[in-house]
């Protein structure tokens, strides 16, 4: 029987300089850029077509969203710290920073939940008008991405120890890939916040 193995799982490819998973995540992010690109473009088309489109800051809670922006940026920092801890061979520190990242992510979702609840209480639903439709759809899809990131991070937090002992390089690679995704989700919010709340 053959003993063939799939290359470049833990070692970067000598020509491209990346591992398979890192390249895969970059390509996945390219696809996500197209998804959010389409969502933002649709937002522009609908907004231009409606002369009575309201300014976001007159309706939405800007201080709360600013708080959420800070939370998400901080979580990106802790995500990098957790990866950096692995590079310095400090698994305990990795755990600490990963827990912080997850908590900050959950914090973002809780704040978002309060925002949504507040809107629902006042009878503002996605069907109210296209402003609310766009607001709920775009932030909702972004929220799903945050939730996905939290789940991935949680999985690595819980199951990480065994892979770390078996192959530290491979595990660090996975955290790096998860981190790339997490930063991307953060970046989407950096675009969403001004274009929906501040314009």
């Amino acid at each position, binding site marked *: 029987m*053959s003993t*063939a193995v799939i*290359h470049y799982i833990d070692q970067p490819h000598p020509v491209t300089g990346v591992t*398979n998973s890192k390249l895969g995540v970059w390509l996945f992010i390219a*696809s996500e850029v197209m998804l959010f690109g389409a969502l933002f473009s649709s937002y522009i088309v609908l907004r231009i077509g409606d002369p009575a489109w309201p300014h976001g800051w007159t309706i939405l809670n800007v201080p709360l969203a600013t708080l959420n922006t800070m939370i998400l940026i901080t979580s990106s920092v802790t995500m990098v710290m957790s990866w950096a801890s692995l590079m310095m061979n400090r698994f305990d520190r990795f755990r600490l920073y990963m827990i912080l990242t997850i908590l900050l992510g959950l914090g973002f979702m809780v704040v978002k939940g309060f925002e949504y609840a507040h809107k629902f209480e006042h009878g503002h639903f996605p069907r109210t008008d296209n402003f609310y439709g766009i607001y709920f*759809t775009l932030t909702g899809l972004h929220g799903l991405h945050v939730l996905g990131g939290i789940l991935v991070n949680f999985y690595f937090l819980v199951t990480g120890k065994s892979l770390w002992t078996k192959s530290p390089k491979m595990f660090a690679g996975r955290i790096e890939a998860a981190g790339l995704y997490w930063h991307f989700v953060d970046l989407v919010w950096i675009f969403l916040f001004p274009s929906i709340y501040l314009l």
Partner: protein
Amino acid sequence: MSEHHELGFIRKYVFSVDHKVIGIQYAITGLLFLLFGFCLMMIMRWQLAYPGEALPLVASWLEHSNKMPGGVMGPDLYNAFGAMHGTIMVFLGVVPLAVGGFGNYLVPLQIGAPDMAFPKLNAASYWSYFVGGVIMLGSFFLPEGPAQSGWTSYPPLSNLAGTGQTFWLVGMIYLVASSLLGSVNFLVTIIQLRAKGLSFFRMPFFVWAQFVTAFLLLLAFPPLQAAAVFQLMDRVVGTSFFLPSGLVVGGTPLAVAGGGNPILWQHLFWFLAHPEVYVLILPAIGLVTEVIVNNTRKPLYGYKTMVYSLLFLGFMSFVVWAHHMFMTGMGTTMSNFFQATTMIISIPSVILLSCLIITLWGGSIRYTLPMHFALAFLPMFAIGGLTGLPLGLAAADIYLHDTYYVIGHFHYVVAPGTLFALFAGIYHWYPKATGRMMNQVLGKLHFWISFLAINGIFMPMFIQGFAGVSRRLAIPNFYAHSEAVQGTNVFMSISAWILGAAQLLFIINFFMSMKTGKKATDNPWDATTLEWATPTPPPHGNFLQEPVVHRGPYEYSVPGKATDYIPQQVS
């Protein structure tokens, strides 16, 4: 992984992570969906040939059916079958067979890799496709039936249609997820896992075709995902992204907020669906190239020109989408832009086809079974492509838009075009996958009957189109001007049923050859590319030792050599 243990039946053949098993799963599921989609059309063709008459043979079973009372097909069912025929053929049949099936099976073999870069992701991709397919099929059992707003699902019609449309959207989201996982996997595999010595310009052309296709899938599908989410919101939550203000349906104003833009859907949809056309055709061109080069025993003419054309084609396919929308009143500036890009994109397509035809020139052609289909592909694709040019010019399109001419055009590209290429591929690689050759006599019968019948279906569509017969009409001779060409419908329908009967030959051949076919050697076609350097059928892990590549993909008839082919791994 180096440790090896025997897997049980379920792990080996059902929930496998081996790219070859997944490829075959994709191929067989895709073929079944193609058969199903074709059956829908064969029933619809009865209605088109004999409008309002009861289906023969089965009418007595359908006496109390609420969908087809007395065996007569009503407009609702006709619309549903039409919408699902398109959806199934494109998203559940051709793409899974061409990309999921052939891509999965051949790409790792042709680049000398043991498997795809992410085997589990590969399995996830197949099962996501499977779930999407089940949801689409499940919608047939809804009380209101499946989606009936056409495969393009234009709002506001689709927004207001029955529950089937919601199933269509949810199914679509699964299919998009599947192709996303697949395309990431293909790209990483091709970029990272090529065998030692296999530089990009030594890759077989089929791998190039899959490479560009994967980019199209990766970048073009997400906008449809976005559009599907918007339409799902419209339908389920009650937003009005695609519903304009003041929409009146059946005399009563709709109780929605309004302010939406139905054209927005068309832009998002065609942003996917035009690259999707190239997703349908590029793997087919890749397959045909492999078969033609192998059977002319000559190097491919203009390999690099073809690769650059392919890359240019892939890029351009993102900027032609609105040539489907000349009738929306988007303005002459927009129309001019998209007419120009459409004319430009025809250039690389013609280069690809010309290179293949010049490859034939001066070759000592072996008329093998796959070669029959590959040769038929060339004129069929040419007809499909050239009839597209008038549709790319707004002035001509305004007359021909939404007539049978359009149906004839894109079916020539996809049916006698892509499908013939896929048949060529099946006949060509069947010996590698099963270890046995397919039956020649049955295969040639299958080819000649299919070739004549398929032209019998689609050629008259151009005549009908010029006569102004609209597509999507459940009663084809509803308008007086269509009555003149109603006779062609009978001819086309009979051709379609003959085509259906001819596919039985293929099905028989497919299963019979597995048991009784002539045993195949590892390299029955004397081919040069790496997949023929594996044992037959290839074991888990593919190659007995890691292959090293020493030469380009198509070194046929090199002067002064003992054989007329030199495989890539020969030093």
